[in-house]
């Protein structure tokens, strides 16, 4: 009922404005929501040109593509809230994807990486990849917090280190750089299988995992002390420190949590793509960072919402999907992606400047 009351109040406030203020009100509303308006226009336009765009199959495709990128974006968003970034994310996804694949290759696959070792139980593999991702995140966080290094530098370094490890891993045990595939059917069905569908279109399981991750991250960000501390450190580390927040511990934890998220992304990617090589995960962080800033997780620090991250991911995927449906030259995807990021960040900073 509160919502209705709020709307009533807002409407009353709007009524009280004179005509000039009303004009600015509409202008502000339009500008602040420009991205969503553009998105709706884009969807409607695509639909009129190709009405396959809004079939259940197509919508489900966009949802599942978005779901695959949600965990990594939720992880990286935490780093951005701390005014940092994480360049190692993509390579961590690659490493954990290859680890998952190698541990879960089916027994009858001819070129298994671990010869006669049985297929490990899936929960154990999830724990392993979370641990590996978390460990790299811990290293990131430690160097950022302890030595006050900029995350850009730290994660650039760990990105390279992780890539080196990834290549050593994929060359090891006689695998010689061959792609890791031939995944066990239990693994495939755990990730890409489905138990329920809409209108005959199955919902892949990893969509549900993404939903769980989003709920979990929302809870962590909004309902825990750790979450509050994260925002406090993000907006002003000195102030946070003075008010008794353990800045070092918070920074390390945020990065560790992010690393664990990359591990989960790697686990899902591994089965979703089915073939994992040294190139897996390359540049994933770019899309994730783009989605975060589009969704209003600001590089200014201390602001951002999980719902924004989800929205950012969806905006990117919807636009990419629409371009294929419109049969537009693929090079335009880069231009359009760049423009969206630019516009989104400009709108975001504009709000911030006004407040100042």
């Amino acid at each position, binding site marked *: 009922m509160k919502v209705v009351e709020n709307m009533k109040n807002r409407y009353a406030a709007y009524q009280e404005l004179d005509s000039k203020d009303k004009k600015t009100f509409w202008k502000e509303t339009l500008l602040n929501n420009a991205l969503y308006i553009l998105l709706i226009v884009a969807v409607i336009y695509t639909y009129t040109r190709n009405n396959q765009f809004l079939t259940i199959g197509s919508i489900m495709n966009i949802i599942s593509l978005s779901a695959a990128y949600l965990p990594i974006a939720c992880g990286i968003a935490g780093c951005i809230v701390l005014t940092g970034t994480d360049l190692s994310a993509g390579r961590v996804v690659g490493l954990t994807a290859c680890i998952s694949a190698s541990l879960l290759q089916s027994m009858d696959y001819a*070129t298994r990486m671990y010869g006669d070792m049985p297929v490990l139980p899936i929960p154990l593999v999830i724990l392993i990849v979370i641990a590996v991702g978390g460990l790299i995140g811990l290293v990131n966080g430690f160097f950022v917090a302890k030595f006050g290094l900029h995350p850009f530098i730290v994660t650039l370094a760990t990105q390279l280190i992780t890539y080196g490890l990834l*290549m050593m891993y994929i060359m090891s045990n006689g695998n*010689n750089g061959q792609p890791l595939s*031939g995944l066990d059917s239990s693994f495939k069905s755990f990730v*890409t299988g489905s138990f329920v569908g809409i209108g005959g279109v199955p919902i892949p399981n990893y969509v549900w995992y993404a939903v769980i991750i989003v709920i979990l991250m929302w809870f962590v960000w909004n309902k825990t002390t750790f979450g509050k501390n994260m925002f406090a450190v993000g907006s002003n580390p000195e102030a946070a420190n003075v008010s008794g927040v353990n800045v070092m511990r918070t920074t390390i934890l945020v990065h560790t949590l992010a690393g664990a998220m990359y591990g989960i992304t790697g686990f899902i990617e591994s089965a979703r*793509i*089915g073939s994992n090589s040294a*190139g897996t995960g390359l540049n994933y962080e770019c899309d994730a960072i783009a989605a975060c800033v589009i969704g209003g997780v600001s590089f200014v620090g201390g602001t951002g919402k999980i719902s924004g991250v989800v929205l950012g991911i969806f905006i990117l995927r919807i636009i990419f999907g629409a371009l294929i*449906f419109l049969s537009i030259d693929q090079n335009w995807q880069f231009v359009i992606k760049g423009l969206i990021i630019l516009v989104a960040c400009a709108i975001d900073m504009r709000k911030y400047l006004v407040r100042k």
Partner: protein
Amino acid sequence: MKKKFLAAFLCVAMTATMFAGCGDKKDEPAADSNGTTDTTAADDNANQEGETSDANVAVFYYTFADTYIASVRTALDAKLEEMGITYQDYDSNNSQTTQNEQIDTAIQTGANLLIVNIVTSGSVEASQTIVDKANAAGVPVIFFNRAVEDADTEGQVLGSYANCAFVGTDAPEAGHMQGQMIGEYLVENFDKVDLNGDGKISYAMMMGELGNAEAIARTQFGVEDANKVLVEAGKAELEYFDTASPDKYQVDKEGKWSAQAATEYMNTNLSQFNEGNNNMIELVICNNDGMAEGVITSLNDKGYNTGDDKFIPVFGVDATDAAKQLIADGKMVGTIKQDAEGMADCIAFLTGNVSGGKELMDGTDGYNIAPNVSNKIYIPYAAYTGE
């Protein structure tokens, strides 16, 4: 003060022993099989096997991340070690600038043979720069795998320096063979493949990288040659599944020939083009096996190519272990084999010539040499549809 010096000295000594340790390891097999001292080996270095030569080989790979290149690297490392040749592998990490700098460094460290897997394939400018560097330093250079010049400039670079050679494949050949294979398969199974019975096969094309000579050739000839076979047999030509598309291919925008790009394209394609809409994609042609795997993952999710009747033919290139397994399982039709072992053998043979003091191209008559350029060796491709 003294203490500091001592510490610094110890550090240097430690590093030195570490490097010495590495160097020893590579020479080991030679010392074992040889038994004599190095000086005698250097005196009559005509022998190729089991002798330590003074050859110091630098091998540059365009990227360690490439699956096929990784298998060449494994094979070549083993060969060079067996021959007792000192070598150093460099990862150019998909950057021509990095590679050029590495070459400069290698020449400075005293490398007397360069083996180069060039990053920018098919570009005369890029390869000429490397040849000039080698020429200035007076060291021979062997290019392999990625083309150093395209059809229009054939011989321009390779002809400019006597001490260079190319070991690779005839880039268009894989495309031609793939097209031929597709055509023959379709003629045999036309009605089965033509799911909606409109007398035409609609295909999707997964391209690995924009501007890469191999990718361009495969994208073009994979379709053209298939069409030739189809027309000869009185069938309709292939039709791109999305008739509105200006490109007639979908390319990995990051240029990494990845399974991921192929899966995502295919997922989106299948949400629009499927049997429910009576416009299902009936054939998928891929520039490499990685992309073919990605396509099959996507088809599997929609219930195709799981080993029963619902089957969309998928073709690739490379014959990776994973692709061979897919073919054996009946989930993929065929691929074109690039012979990594054969390529490594040929490079090792030329290296033997150099370390043995012979002419670079000595005794290569048995190899398949390009018709117009005498120092260009082709390692043939082979069609693979299962063993």
